[in-house]
């Protein structure tokens, strides 16, 4: 057992950089979209960890900050397309908040590309897989976060 463990460990060490990406997906559209991607057996990178929220409007900038502080390399906030939000205008305030957070990153001298906002509807399983693939590539290019 210990042998296998150490074997696994060395293999892990040798593996290329695999970023961790936190996806905040709203229950009504984007999470359903992710579900559809799953049932349609679409392939996308396994770097993401999905956090389901009732509405993308629930995602406070503090959640995003915390995700990064706890070790995420990228954060994707996904919600319904404008006009489709289950709670009417939740996603509009998300847009403002994510923009503000990106501006704050800029003030702090940090990479704004690590944070992204996307609209993904329940029927867009394909789009979900595409966005995840693309975003993962982008984060891989940025490389691991350089902590002081």
């Amino acid at each position, binding site marked *: 057992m210990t042998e296998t463990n150490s074997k696994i460990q060395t293999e892990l060490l040798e593996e290329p950089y695999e970023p961790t990406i936190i996806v905040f997906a709203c229950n009504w559209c984007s999470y359903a979209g992710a579900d559809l991607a799953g049932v349609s057996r679409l392939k996308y990178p396994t770097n993401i960890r999905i956090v389901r929220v009732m509405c993308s409007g629930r995602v406070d900038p503090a959640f995003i900050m915390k995700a990064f*502080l706890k070790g995420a390399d990228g954060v994707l906030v996904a919600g319904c397309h404008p006009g489709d939000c289950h709670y009417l205008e939740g996603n509009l305030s998300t847009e403002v908040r994510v923009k503000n*957070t990106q*501006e704050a990153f800029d003030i*702090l*001298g940090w990479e704004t590309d690590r944070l992204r906002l996307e609209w993904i509807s329940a029927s867009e399983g394909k789009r979900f897989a595409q966005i995840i693939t693309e975003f993962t590539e982008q984060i891989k290019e940025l490389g691991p*976060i350089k*902590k*002081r």
Partner: protein
Amino acid sequence: MMVISDQSPIYAAVNLSKSELKTMLSACYQCSSCTSVCPLRRVSKFNPRKIIHKFKMDTPVSEEDLTSCLTCSLCLEVCPQEVDFPEFIRLSRKNVGISDDNFAHHNIFNLIQIFMGEMTESGMKFDFQGKTDPTSNIAYFPGCIDLFDRFLDLKETDFHQIGQSAINIMNKVGISPNLISLKCCGHDAYWTGDEGAYDQVREYNTQFIKSSGISTLVVSCAECYYTFEKLYDLDVRVQHISQFIDENKEKLGFKGETYDLAYHDACRLGRFMKEYDTPRNVLKATGANIKEFTLNKQFTKCCGVSAWLKCDDNSRAIMLRKLEETAQAVGNEGTLAVGCTKCFAHLNCVLEDRKPQHNFQIKVKEIGMIVDETSSSKS
């Protein structure tokens, strides 16, 4: 005399030099002066005297109490025994730790501070109009104002203007400041007991200030001023914007029209730094006729929130009282001057939250803003 027993479980948890805590609390003879002046006591059951008493009887300070105290230091001002209660609270916070849900705004500002310490390699970037000069030996640091603009949902309050006014003023007296790119000063981390985060930013800032070769550092915020001057070990002169203006007020060409104004002594500028007169002199020079509060200078009541801890109904009640005092002094449409970015934020926040809470039409302004508006000099 009661002393803290060495076996006390809290005592073991509070990892302090014993003598420090002993001298801190053992002098208390339970006169209750502190409780009688405490701004929180006016609106809640908060009782510093009782907390001290219970602590000596081996009851730990509850999380509620730990996070409620505003560390405004008014109690220390009146205590006949000079018991430093706010420091006791700070040290207890440091040892016990405060959970995230005690902070206002989902703790975003403290998270940012930790973020700045851990994740970024450089200081904050600023974007202001006017003349700046990276080689100047007089530096200006605006503080966190641009972040307040991003994360506080205030429609009518422009934090950026605090920094813009300061730069306008410096330009008007013929100085192009070095807009120094520091990290957050760390005041809140220090006072909420997160010394790890505080040390990270302090080390960066100290190093950066040293290598920048400046001789004077001007700041707008009372907390920055207190932190850089008192807590850091810097060999540059730290000036609050009011002190800078006071030295240069001849060059600012004030119109001299008189108007009524109320002034609130921020705790970090007043009680902590004993700076009561300079801001008043500056405001008087602009033509202000200062209508003093009944309780002013070292007896000023706090604005209601400190270090983004717990903005609750009690804080609101304290803020509303401050507005009420202002309305009594200068009328419902008068202006209140403050020397601290945080006071500016909290009081403006409660102001924007109008009906049905209140209907004050008061304006809360920062000293630099008032000076910039009333000075007729051209930059």
